[in-house]
């Protein structure tokens, strides 16, 4: 029974990782194609559907961590996936004015390269039991450059969106109401920006630690 469940787990995770890999590959292909043919203003329109779909599929990663399918701690996955979903849905999808910005291109490209490497690494690892060393190196080295680009793009796009958020009053709840509750999306966006201050170094140092551990382990083998 235990072996059957572990086989089932491996099959599921292999399928999950490769499906999401295909999604991100499509995002990268469409982004680069559009960037070359029509310029950065049209990148978002070209990648919107696969981007939102594959980025939303990452919610399952949080569930995988919660139910113990994978070992990655929720403290590492939740802020990363949460911030990405916020930028994808809460900024780009919600405020069309931000979509034509140059930062969308850098965001989409850095996200997709990171995820193509990551999902192919985990997909190979689940399918074959181990991943080739070059993939291991890419998985734990490309973030050194791609994380700062991605995070800067995320922060930049939230900042670009602030005037539109304030002006539109979208997602705002005002008092008076029965439950005596108010919510201002503009201040929420500022709060999210504030979380990037401690969050980014935390994520980066966490990944550096993971890199050190993983590459040391691969050297031993």
């Amino acid at each position, binding site marked *: 029974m235990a072996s059957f469940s572990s086989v089932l787990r491996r099959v599921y995770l292999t399928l999950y990782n490769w499906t999401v890999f295909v999604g991100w590959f499509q995002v990268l292909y469409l982004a680069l194609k559009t960037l070359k043919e029509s310029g950065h203003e049209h990148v978002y329109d070209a990648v919107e559907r696969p981007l939102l779909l594959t980025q939303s599929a990452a919610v399952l990663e949080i569930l995988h961590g919660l139910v113990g399918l994978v070992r990655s701690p929720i403290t590492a996955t939740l802020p990363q996936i949460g911030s990405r979903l916020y930028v994808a849905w809460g900024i780009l999808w919600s405020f069309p004015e931000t979509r034509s910005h140059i930062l969308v291109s850098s965001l989409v490209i850095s996200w997709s390269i990171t995820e193509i490497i990551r999902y192919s690494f985990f997909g190979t690892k689940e399918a074959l039991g181990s991943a080739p060393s070059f993939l291991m190196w890419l998985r734990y080295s490309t973030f050194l450059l791609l994380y700062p680009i991605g995070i800067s793009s995320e922060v930049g796009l939230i900042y670009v969106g602030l005037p539109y958020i304030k002006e539109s009053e979208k997602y705002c709840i005002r*008092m*008076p*109401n*029965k*439950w*005596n*509750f*108010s919510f201002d999306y503009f201040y929420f966006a500022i709060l999210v920006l504030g979380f990037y201050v401690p969050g980014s170094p935390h994520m980066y140092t966490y990944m550096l630690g993971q890199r050190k551990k993983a590459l040391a382990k691969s050297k031993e083998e």
Partner: protein
Amino acid sequence: MKVVVVTRSGRELIKGGLELDDSATVADLQEAIHRRTRKYYPSRQRLTLSLQPGSKEKPTVLHYRKSLKEYCCGNSDNLTVVFKDLGPQVSYRTLFFFEYLGPLLIYPIFYYLPVYQYFGYKGERVVHPVQTYATYYWCFHYFKRIMETFFVHRFSHATSPLSNVFRNCAYYWTFGAYVAYYVNHPFYTPVCDLQMKIGFGFGLLCQISNFYCHILLRNLRRPDGNGGYQIPCGFLFNIVTCANYTTEIYQWLGFNIATQTVAGYVFLVVAASIMTNWALAKHRRLRRLFDGKDGRPKYPRRWVILPPFL
């Protein structure tokens, strides 16, 4: 006897070790370390027995009341202890005083002072009776907590790390401001009179019950804060392990029934989840301790914290 004090990295904290009487206790050793280092007062020290390298066991923590002889191997006169600096410490009374002082002072600011004009509300503010009662209720609660800290509670641990002061104050003070902002808001919508009376009535009953629970817990401990673990009994403790937390949670529920704000319910949920973790740990500890073996009493079947749910 000779005691060698080393840090966790293996470096000798006090060169040449310490010479102590054969009858010396751990407390005497801590005092001796304090005399030699000045910086590390006893409550800042954690002393453990040294473990074999690579050992996965938890180190034995030296209890300040015990004799050092009890920790020596065989009839050896030498002892090596591992020292850990716990960082700056404050008394629990200081910690609780400052964390409760915040909400006690912050909440009335929102009620009495014209703070909302700085948030862009220019008109005249109509104060509803429920807002007045909520202020009295809130202030009574935190005043009660401060009084209990000084005159009721007996602490098993004398001190807490200084960092906890900042963490706990951030929690209480932020939530104090968050709840106060909405309950005293100029656009606040009050509940019906009956709901308000039920909420505050139930809440007040729970506050009095909470005070009585604290009296019962106080009587389980000796005046010096020791006395080990005992099975709490009497009043609500006959049905709930942590009746003090139960009454605490339900009195905030009463407050929220009367005031009906999302902020208040958020505070309730966060506080309840924190207390539930503590209660589960205490329940497990009491059940493990009072297992009914070797003449020990068996811990009775009880709710943990939230009857009829948990």
